[in-house]
């Protein structure tokens, strides 16, 4: 449970099962908050995070190179995708990349080129689409922009997961002298910034 005061009124936030909420928040941005009944924040997180992720996918896509090429999991020595550690933060929407990577590791044909690791050199009939060089050549800076957007979306969802798990972060206001303690005491009677007191 977390409380927040504003304008002299206190609002209690029911966090329900924080672990389950955090898991749901990771699975789909906003789903954890929807489970907790925090509808406004659920909508905000879903629109902002999924919008950023989908726009990143769009920027890193093209009819020639295929769709969703900026999100893929690869641990080849010549193509380690550290980006995916950030992208997986959005949960289920980035999960096809993991499935595609596992299929390729096991020597199976991937489900199309969507989120499949691009080969170093194009392999006809392998179903992995064009090579990484061809993607960079075709998309140029839009590939990096797509990476940036999808990585930021994943990292933003980490903040949303923490919010679903523990409630809003405590904001301690400051008075003119920068005395945090004084400011915290004065917040009890003012309509300043939030002062949530979170308990599980």
């Amino acid at each position, binding site marked *: 449970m977390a409380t927040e005061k504003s304008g002299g009124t206190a609002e209690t*936030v029911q966090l329900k099962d924080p672990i389950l909420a955090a898991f749901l928040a990771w699975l789909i941005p906003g789903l954890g908050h929807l489970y907790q009944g925090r509808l406004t924040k659920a909508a905000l997180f879903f629109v902002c995070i999924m919008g950023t992720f989908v726009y990143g996918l769009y920027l890193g896509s093209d009819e020639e190179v295929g769709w969703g090429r900026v999100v893929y999991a690869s641990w080849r020595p010549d193509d380690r995708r550290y980006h995916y550690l950030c992208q997986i933060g959005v949960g289920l929407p980035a999960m096809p990349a993991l499935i595609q990577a596992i299929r390729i590791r096991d020597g199976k044909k991937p489900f199309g080129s969507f989120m499949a690791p691009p080969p170093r050199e194009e392999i006809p009939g392998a179903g992995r689409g064009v090579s990484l060089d061809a993607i960079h050549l075709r998309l140029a800076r839009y590939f990096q922009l797509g990476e940036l957007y999808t990585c*930021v*979306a994943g990292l933003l969802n980490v903040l*949303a997961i923490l919010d679903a798990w523990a409630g809003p972060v405590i904001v301690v206001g400051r008075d003119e002298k920068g005395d945090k303690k004084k400011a915290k005491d004065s917040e009890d009677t003012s309509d300043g910034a939030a002062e949530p007191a979170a308990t599980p």
Partner: protein
Amino acid sequence: MIDPLLLAMAGPNDLWYTLPLVIAVSLVYAATRHEQTGLILRHAVETAARIAGFMLIVFVILWLITWWIR
């Protein structure tokens, strides 16, 4: 010689791609600090202004360096 400031403002400007990011980051960051919509929006505007201000400072520093070394 072409003024770097004019060069930066001419043509398709990739800086526009920062706008959706700044909006999304500000809103999500603010939403993890408040529960009420009014407070979230106020905090988001402040955060967006801080990010824009920081970018402006970096731009001015880079512009001055460019102006100085040319």
